[in-house]
């Protein structure tokens, strides 16, 4: 008897998982086809890559500026992407009747909403990978002050930036060709292509760096002594390839956690609100969360400010760019703790969303 | 009937009309309409028939200037479809009624009347009369967004009539309406047509088309497959039917035998049944659910003016 009940619940879970996977996949494919998703991804990647090119005031902080800009783009554009995708896939589907068609099948509302959140997170993850790769490239490509025999001044790794920009352009070209010759969907191919291109550009840049490095060792045996570069005496130019700053990854993971929280909030809000208002609420929560200390500092638990501080997610836990300054690191145990906090907040928002969705008329 | 070619003037004329949809790279994807030649004359009810994707709605949208033809020409009252002089004489009910959800039916009608440049007072008067006609007076203050599909359809029909049009283009006019509404729409079409309004309509309900259309054209895969007067197209040549009232069963049987003997082939003799629609209308009118349908006074005035100008 117990075994039968167990096998029944396992089968139900399996069915729910399969349904959720199908819904998630549909959400991701539907979302990345939207022109807005591609525009946001392109804007984020290109802004991040071009910031080092258009920096004017150098106080030896070019790398930091590029890194902070990249992470800011990740948070702001990611938030818009998450809210937009959630609005379209939840509020939009409720309005168009697609949600009713799905719920009309033996799919529970909870499964539907959780799958939508997973789908939104999936889109955000692809976006995150692309922007992270662009941020790493931008920091590497920023001007640094180099002092060595025969050269003193700012050196820039233009190759990495050029590879990133060229990669995005190539991805768009390939997506266009795929659409023309094989009638593939441009939005999907371009979104995934741009994301992949950034990772590929970074990998190529790394390979190039190692290659230059190996040539550099031989060349520098003459006594140059600057790390991570090479210069061919015959060519008369200097290839400058500083190492990747992988410390950024931890900060970016924290931003991803923040985006997961906002995706949950936007998904919950989209059960009742349209995309615009949901986005506005998310933006307000972001601002309130970032200004948490000045907003709710010292507020009592029973005051309005105290209550707000308890309910609103503290975004400052996820925004630790300054910790990377001057060689600082964000420890992975801290990231794990922040992940726990993010998951708790997500669970809270999603529970509220499920309750709200349960009472929502879909007719 | 006999309304066909009342004025004899062509209202809609298409020649070699083609519409090919293209993709982003301008490559042809679907040829929706291919070389369509049609003429709809003043005062007739013309039906476009065809399965899904046969090009009916595309033809209508080209006639209204919402889509541009890839090749061929289309003229409305002798003007191009985007000419404002032509548009001023057209009323259009699309397949799905997309109205401003936050406006009430009264505001909706006043808005569409204002687009014809009607003074506010006149617009309001017409709106009231049309609301009365489509039986929405009681719901005139509620936002259209909260209406059922049938009610929204009635508002859509009313807005198509707000300018007392000379040409009424109806895309699936009875879709979403209950049988009473369907009958009223058909009655309205007959009334309008009798006053000289030209009607171009599409419908999947062939019985509806049969009831109201003077002429029909059958489209398939964007091509014109058949066209002509409805009665002629549906006539079964060589078959004769007698309808006799008050005949007993024995007499009927003997008559059938007599006819069989004369014709030398089997003769069908049965008790005819009324159509379900007729039966339903009889039941509903007995219960008092059906109301007397009346055309809006301004439409009657327009009809009168048309008749006088025709005379």
């Amino acid at each position, binding site marked *: 008897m117990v075994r039968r009940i167990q096998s029944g619940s396992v089968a139900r879970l399996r069915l729910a998982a399969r349904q959720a996977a199908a819904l998630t996949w549909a959400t991701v494919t539907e979302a990345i086809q*939207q*022109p*807005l998703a591609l*525009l*946001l991804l392109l*804007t984020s990647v290109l802004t991040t890559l*071009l910031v080092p*090119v*258009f920096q*004017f*005031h150098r106080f030896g902080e070019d790398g930091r500026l590029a890194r902070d800009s990249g992470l800011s783009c990740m948070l702001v554009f990611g938030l818009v992407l998450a809210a*937009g995708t959630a609005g379209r896939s939840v509020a939009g589907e409720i309005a168009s009747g697609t949600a009713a068609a799905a719920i009309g099948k033996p799919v529970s509302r909870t499964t539907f909403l959780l799958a939508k959140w997973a789908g939104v997170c999936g889109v955000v993850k692809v976006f995150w990978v692309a922007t992270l790769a662009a941020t790493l490239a931008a920091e590497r490509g920023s001007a640094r002050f180099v002092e060595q025999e025969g050269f003193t001044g700012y050196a820039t790794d233009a190759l990495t930036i050029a590879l990133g920009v060229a990669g995005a352009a190539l991805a768009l070209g390939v997506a266009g060709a795929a659409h023309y010759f094989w009638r593939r969907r441009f939005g999907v191919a371009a979104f995934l292509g741009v994301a992949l291109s950034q990772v590929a550009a970074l990998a190529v840049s790394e390979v190039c760096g190692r290659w230059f490095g190996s040539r550099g060792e031989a060349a520098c045996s003459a006594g140059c002594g600057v790390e991570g570069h090479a210069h061919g005496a015959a060519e008369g130019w200097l290839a400058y390839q500083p190492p990747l700053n992988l410390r950024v990854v931890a900060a970016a993971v924290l931003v991803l956690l923040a985006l997961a929280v906002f995706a949950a909030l936007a998904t919950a809000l989209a059960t009742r609100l349209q*995309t*615009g*208002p949901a986005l506005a609420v998310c933006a307000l929560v972001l601002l309130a969360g970032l200004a948490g200390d000045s907003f709710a500092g010292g507020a009592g638990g029973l005051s309005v400010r105290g209550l707000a501080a308890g309910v609103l997610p503290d975004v400052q836990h996820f925004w630790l760019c300054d910790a990377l300054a001057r060689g600082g690191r964000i420890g992975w145990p801290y990231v794990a703790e922040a992940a726990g906090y993010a998951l708790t907040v997500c669970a809270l928002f999603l529970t509220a969303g499920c309750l709200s969705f349960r009472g929502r008329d879909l007719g | 009937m006999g309304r066909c070619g009342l004025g004899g003037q062509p209202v809609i004329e298409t020649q070699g009309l083609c*519409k090919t*949809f293209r993709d982003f790279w301008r490559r042809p994807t*679907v040829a*929706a309409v291919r070389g369509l030649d049609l003429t709809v004359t003043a005062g007739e009810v013309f039906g476009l028939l065809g399965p*899904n*994707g*046969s*090009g*009916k*709605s*595309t033809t209508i*949208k080209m006639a*209204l*200037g*919402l*889509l*541009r033809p890839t090749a061929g020409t289309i003229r409305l009252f002798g003007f191009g479809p*985007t000419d*404002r*002089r032509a*548009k001023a004489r*057209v009323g*259009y009910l*699309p397949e*799905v009624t*997309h*109205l*401003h959800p*936050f*406006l009430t039916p009264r*505001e909706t009608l*006043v*808005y*569409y009347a*204002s*687009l*014809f*440049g*009607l*003074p*506010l007072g006149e617009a309001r008067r017409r709106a009231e009369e049309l609301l009365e006609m489509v039986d929405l007076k009681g719901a005139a203050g509620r*936002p259209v967004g909260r209406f059922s599909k049938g009610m929204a359809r009635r508002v*859509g029909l009313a*807005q198509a009539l707000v*300018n007392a049009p000379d040409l009424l283009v109806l895309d699936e006019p009875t879709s979403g309406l209950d049988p009473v509404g369907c009958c009223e729409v058909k009655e309205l079409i007959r009334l309008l047509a009798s006053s000289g309004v030209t009607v171009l309509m599409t419908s999947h309900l062939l019985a509806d088309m049969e009831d109201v259309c003077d002429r029909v054209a059958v489209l398939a895969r964007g091509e014109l497959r058949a066209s002509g007067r409805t009665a002629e197209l549906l006539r079964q040549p060589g078959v004769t039917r007698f309808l006799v009232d008050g005949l007993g069963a024995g007499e009927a049987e003997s008559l059938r035998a007599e006819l069989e003997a004369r014709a030398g082939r089997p003769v069908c003799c049965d008790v005819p049944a009324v159509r379900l629609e007729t039966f339903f209308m009889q039941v509903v009118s007995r219960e008092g659910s059906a109301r007397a349908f009346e055309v809006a006074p301004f439409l009657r005035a327009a009809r009168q003016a048309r008749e006088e100008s025709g005379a």
Partner: protein
Amino acid sequence: MSASRARDAVAESVRRCCGVAAVALRAAVRTRMVAALLVLLAACVTGLPRVLKGDGTPSGELDILLRYTLGFSFGLLCLATLWAACALFAVEIASQRMHLAAVKPVRAAEFWLGKWLALLALGAALLTAVYGGVYAQVRVRAWRAGWSAEQRPAGRRVARPLLPSIAEEARETYALMRQRGELPPGLGPGAALRVLAEQAEERYEVLNPGDEVVWKFRLARPPRADEPLLVRLRFDTEYSTREQVAGLCRLWLADRPERVAEVALADFTLNEIVFAVDMRALVNGGAAAGRDVRLAFRHQGDPARASALMMRFRKDVAVLTPGGSFEANLARSALAQLGVLALLAALGLTLSVCFSPPVAAFCATVLLVLALVSGTVVGAVRETGEEGAWMRVGLRIARLVHDVAGQATREEPLESLTRGELIEGRALLAVWLWNGALAPVVLAVFGCGVLRRRELAAGD
């Protein structure tokens, strides 16, 4: 006959525009967009002055009320207008509601104009509410704190020193540099003149201790004995340090140089020094004969210890005369801002014709950010110089955007309002000619062209 037909046609056209505008307004009100905006603006107008702390002086309070509160509210209105405009056509086309309207005898321009007027009316109503709220607060604060007549906000006419125009000065400098062979190689005359004009506007003149400088002013009307003149000066030093300013200001009428009003200055650099000159000492009752006034400043600092003072004559010296009431200036500021809203509405509508709602909103936001950033980029390059091909391309784009956007935001009404300077009618007219007429017409022509050519329906 033809005249009456034309009158009828115009009346019909007006009715169509009004019909379109009325529906757009109803949509805004009934979708609760206006209510949400009003709540947000009310929170901003009442909340910001409480949250932001001034320096306690009446001018500090005015700064918070007029510059920050009005500025922030205006920013909100700009975004709301832009995004609402982006949705107006795009949503109607996407939801197929446009089918019903497009088959009616309405010109594309009438659709465009109707929607634009609706946005303008909405913007005007919300701006009135915001300005009304701020004005009430100014009055209440002035009454509670008992501000003096001079502390109360006003709208004064500003007279700047009579100097050669910036273009003339740039041309003269260019000719001089060319004569001396000091022009940088590879710089064309156009680019050189532009750079010199930019420098002329910001050029500092040095006043060493003991130096005296005399400026000529032409006032809008002859000064009156019963109306004191206000003189405004601002000094700087080479390293923008805070130093003592000790000097003597003298003011006289050009046609009566024998009667001079003297004011001793003892203040600091970087401060805005404002003092009143009693005109009874210079004018014998009634009004003076001429409009020309001279102002002299002598640096009386200790030559051994005092720093040289620096001034931008075009910006740091002004004589203010009574011009109008604060209320009228407030209304002019609101009108100038409404002009900007008119331009944003036109931009949003045209984008709305071309793209789907989210893409139109995205493009509009990107353009807005570019317009805001372009000024910073151009300014930064002015200081650091151009480097590399990439930067030159970026700079060219930034300059283009800056030039176009600069036209729209050339007048800074809040700056004038806060400083108590009258917003001139001519400047207001120029703002409206560009923001409310020329630019919207160009955008409308483009938008209507697209609307006419665009297929508004899909196939079966």
